[in-house]
C-alpha cells in the first residue's frame, strides 16, 4: 500500500532527484576506487605480511657464502644459514642450475630460462595469478616427477605437458651434457599474463616496500620463459637420480641440479633476540653475503603501509567533500520535497494516517531511490568489469567495495529519514490545509 504512495513521491521534484542521483553515484564510484586501490595493494602486501612481522631483515641476495664455514662455498639451504645466525628463521628463494633445452619445442624455452626455487613457506605464502592449471604445492615435493610452473612468453607449453630432461651441467666429459637416463618434469601451471611472482624485479629497490619483491610478468616485454619449482622437489629428485647417475657426474658432485640461495630472502628474529645478537647476525650477513636490497622488517612495514594508505590520504578529502555535498543536496531536497508534499501528507493525515506513517512513506521513497542508485552503480561497474574496460586499472568489485557502498547508502537513507522525521508533523495538518484556502 505504502509503495503506491512512495512511488508517486518519486515522480515529484525530478531535478533534485537527478542531482542526488549523480552525486551519490560519484560518491559510490569514489568509494569503490579507494577501496579497490587499498584492496589491490593490500592483496600484494598480505602474503609477505608475515615475513615483515616483528624484528628481521628482508633482502634480495645475490650470493651468500660460508657453507661449512668455507668463505668460497655458497649456501644452498636456508636451514644451514640459520645455524650461523642467532635466534633467526630464514625463508629463501633459490637459483637452480637446470637446463630446459631438451624437448626444445620452441626457441624461447632455451637453456637460459631462469629456474627459481622456493622454500615451502614461500610457496604457500603467495599464489601468483594462474592462467591454467595450478600453483606449486608443498605436498607434491615427494614424487619423482618434478613439477614446474611456467611463465612463458609464447604459448609453447600446456598444462600437463611432460618435458624430458636429458642434460645436466654437472655431467662429465660430454658436450651435450647427457644424462644416461632422462628425467621427467611436468607442467602443472601456466602463469597469467600480468602475474607478479615473487622474485627479484629488474628495478628492485625502487620502492623499499613490498613491491620490491614482485616481478611484473608481461608476455610482450619478456625475452624468455621463467620456470618456478619447489626447492624441496628438486632436492628430492636430486637424491633419487644422483645415485643412478653417479658415475656419469663430475667428481665431487652429489646432485644433478646444483642450486644456491639467491633472490628474495626473509630473515625473522625470534621475539627474545637481544641487540647484541642482532648485531652479530647483521655482521655475519654483511661479511658473507652480497645483496642488492636489504631492509629491516620495521622499514618494510612502515613503507608498505604508507604506500597502501597513500591513495586514501589523497582521495579521502575529496570523498569527504563529495559526501558533504551529497548530504547538503539531500538536506535541501528533503526540505523542498517535504514542503511540496506536506499538503498531501496533511490530506493523508486528515484521512487517517499518523505523521509517523507519512514519514515512512517518504522513507520508503528514499529507500527505493537510494537502492536504485546503489544497484545502478554496482551494475555499471560490474558491466565495465565484464567487458574488460577496467582491466588495466585497480578498479574492481569485491566484497569490501560492495560493503563500503552499502554502508554509504544506508547512511544516506538513515540521514534522509531522520531529516524527514524532524520535518514532518511539526505543524498541524489543518494549518497546512488552510494555507491554500
Amino acid at each position, binding site marked *: *500500500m505504502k509503495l*503506491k*504512495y512512495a512511488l*508517486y513521491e518519486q*515522480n515529484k521534484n525530478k531535478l533534485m532527484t537527478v542531482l542526488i542521483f549523480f552525486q551519490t553515484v560519484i560518491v559510490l564510484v569514489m568509494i569503490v576506487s579507494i577501496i579497490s586501490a587499498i584492496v589491490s595493494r593490500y592483496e600484494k602486501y598480505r602474503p609477505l605480511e608475515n615475513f615483515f612481522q616483528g624484528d628481521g631483515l628482508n633482502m634480495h641476495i645475490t650470493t651468500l657464502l660460508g657453507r661449512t664455514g668455507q668463505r668460497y662455498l655458497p649456501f644452498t639451504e636456508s636451514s644451514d644459514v640459520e645455524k650461523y645466525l642467532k635466534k633467526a628463521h630464514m625463508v629463501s628463494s633459490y637459483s637452480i642450475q637446470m637446463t630446459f633445452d631438451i624437448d626444445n619445442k620452441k626457441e624461447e624455452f632455451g637453456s637460459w630460462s631462469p629456474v627459481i626455487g622456493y622454500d615451502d613457506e614461500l610457496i604457500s605464502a603467495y599464489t601468483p595469478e594462474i592462467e591454467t592449471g595450478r600453483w606449486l604445492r608443498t605436498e607434491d615435493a615427494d614424487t619423482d616427477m618434478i613439477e614446474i610452473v611456467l611463465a612463458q612468453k609464447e604459448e609453447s607449453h600446456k598444462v600437463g605437458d611432460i618435458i624430458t630432461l636429458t642434460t645436466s651441467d654437472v655431467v662429465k666429459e660430454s658436450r651435450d651434457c647427457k644424462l644416461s637416463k632422462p628425467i621427467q618434469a611436468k607442467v602443472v601451471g601456466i602463469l597469467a599474463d600480468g602475474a607478479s611472482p615473487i622474485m627479484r624485479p629488474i628495478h628492485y629497490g625502487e620502492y623499499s616496500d613490498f613491491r620490491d619483491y614482485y616481478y611484473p610478468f608481461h608476455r610482450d616485454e619478456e625475452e624468455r620463459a621463467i620456470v618456478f619449482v619447489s626447492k624441496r622437489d628438486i632436492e628430492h629428485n636430486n637424491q633419487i637420480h644422483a645415485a643412478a647417475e653417479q658415475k656419469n657426474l663430475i667428481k665431487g658432485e652429489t646432485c644433478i641440479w646444483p642450486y644456491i640461495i639467491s633472490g628474495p630472502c626473509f630473515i625473522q628474529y625470534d621475539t627474545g633476540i637481544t641487540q647484541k645478537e642482532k648485531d652479530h647476525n647483521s655482521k655475519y650477513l654483511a661479511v658473507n653475503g652480497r645483496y642488492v636490497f636489504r631492509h629491516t622488517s620495521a622499514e618494510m612495514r612502515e613503507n608498505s603501509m604508507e604506500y597502501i594508505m597513500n591513495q586514501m590520504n589523497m582521495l579521502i578529502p575529496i570523498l569527504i567533500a563529495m559526501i558533504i555535498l551529497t548530504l547538503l543536496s539531500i538536506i535541501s531536497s528533503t526540505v523542498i520535497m517535504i514542503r511540496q508534499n506536506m499538503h*498531501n501528507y*496533511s*490530506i*493523508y*493525515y*486528515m*484521512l*487517517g*494516517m*499518523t*505523521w*509517523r*506513517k507519512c514519514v515512512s512513506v517518504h522513507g520508503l521513497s528514499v529507500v527505493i531511490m537510494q537502492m536504485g542508485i546503489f544497484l545502478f552503480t554496482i551494475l555499471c561497474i560490474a558491466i565495465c568489469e565484464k567487458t574488460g574496460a577496467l582491466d588495466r586499472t585497480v578498479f574492481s568489485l569485491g566484497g569490501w567495495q560492495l560493503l563500503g557502498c552499502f554502508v554509504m547508502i544506508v547512511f544516506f537513507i538513515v540521514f534522509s529519514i531522520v531529516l524527514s522525521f524532524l520535518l514532518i508533523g511539526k505543524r*498541524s*495538518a*489543518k494549518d497546512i*490545509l*488552510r494555507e*491554500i*484556502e
Partner: protein
Amino acid sequence: MVKLDNIIKTYNKGKSNAFEALHGVSLTVGSGEMVAIVGTSGAGKSTLLHILACIDGYDSGEYCIDGMVIGKVSEKKMAAIRNEKIGMVMQDFALVEEFTALDNVMIPLDFASRGKKKRKKERKEIALKMLEMVQMQDFADKPVNNLSGGQKQRVAIARAIANEPSLILADEPTGALDTETTREIMKVFIDLNQQGRTIIIVTHDLAVAEQCSRVIRIEDGRIIE
C-alpha cells in the same frame, strides 16, 4: 453522538500573539442530524470543525465521539478515528491533484487500520461505488486536476464517505462553487443524511443553511443560538 463541552481553543498559546478563537463552546449533535454552522468570517467556524475532525487539538474542555474522549487517546487511535468515524470535506477539496478520482477515493480505504483493511480489488469496487453515488463514475480514471470545481467536490465527498463514517464534516463545501453546482452538492448531502448519516456543514451561505435540520450560529468564538 458528538458532544463538545466548554471547549476553549487558543492559537499561539503562550506567545505574544496568542488568540483565543473559541471561548468555551458546548454543543451536542445527535445521530442522523444535519446541522449547519453559520457565522461571519473569522467567527471560529473552521476552528470548531477542525477540532471536530480531530485534525486540531483544543486547550480545555472535552470532546466526545460516541462516548470516546478525543485528546485522551493515542496518536494511532486518533488516526483510526479520523479514518473510520469521520469524513471530512474541505472548501478547497483537499484532493491529491495528480491522483485520479479513483485513487483519491481509495486513500482512506488504503489507510484503514490493520484488520479492517480490505483487499485491493474490494477497495477498488467500493471506491467506484462511492464515485457512482456522487455521479462521478465516468471520471474515475481522470486525474482530478482536470476536473471542474463541482466535480472535484463530488470526488471529495465520495472520498469522505468511502469508509462509511458516521459523521460527515464539511467546511464551506460550496464556498468555491456557483449556485447551480451548490444545489447539486447540497442534494448529495441531503441524500447522505437521508441514508442516516450525521452531517455538520460550515457555511455562510444562508441558502445552504436553510436546507439543514438545525442551524447553529457562532460569533466571536461563542455559540449564540
